[in-house]
């Protein structure tokens, strides 16, 4: 079953607006929640990440809000710019028995910021 559910599938925002992408997870053992940004023809790149012991993390225009009780987390992009147009993936990971972080990715959100 899908461990991480992401919505919406696509999003259109006007320049200067706020983009919000939501994710929900099932496994309460997950202990790391990164967001990846992917431009066409490129591999995903880490954008911002949060651990479950904090409710919010902000880096520049990007903020993760984390609700542990609801098992949900979201990415907020403030003052969205056309250069933010990309596909965004949320992910969740847990310490794996083989000593690595196995990532479970959401299905992705294609963001289009209109000039």
């Amino acid at each position: 079953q899908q461990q991480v559910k992401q919505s919406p599938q696509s999003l259109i925002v006007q320049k200067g607006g706020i983009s919000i992408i939501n994710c929900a997870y099932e496994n309460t053992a997950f202990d790391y929640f990164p967001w990846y940004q992917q431009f066409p023809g490129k591999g995903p790149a880490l954008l911002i990440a949060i651990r479950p012991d904090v409710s919010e993390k902000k880096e520049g225009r990007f903020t993760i809000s984390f609700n542990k009780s609801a098992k949900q987390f979201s990415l907020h992009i403030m003052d969205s710019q056309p250069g933010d147009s990309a596909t965004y993936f949320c992910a969740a990971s847990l310490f794996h028995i083989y000593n690595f972080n196995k990532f479970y990715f959401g299905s992705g959100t294609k963001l289009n910021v209109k000039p």
Partner: protein
Amino acid sequence: GAGVSQSPSNKVTEKGKDVELRCDPISGHTALYWYRQSLGQGLEFLIYFQGNSAPDKSGLPSDRFSAERTGGSVSTLTIQRTQQEDSAVYLCASSLAFEQGNTLAKNIQYFGAGTRLSVL
């Protein structure tokens, strides 16, 4: 190298043929991952290498898929007797292992640009 390098960037093959996809991780990264990204889907974990060994290959979809890593560096993903449903972008990522670096660094996977496989 400066980043994760994958080759070829695009591969078109006929159904039933075998293909090999190559990944050259960031120098010094002992952990290497393969993912599959189908159209409109998220990243599907295939296999993980720590050094040359693959402690987790649970994501390989069938026995037509195999991967190896030699010298703790380059990895090859092989798909035998390709099927149309194998068409996807195959992504490779590398990271420091848990015994290297700090907690933050160990959680960062660096991705290559992927190989787009089209099976006709």
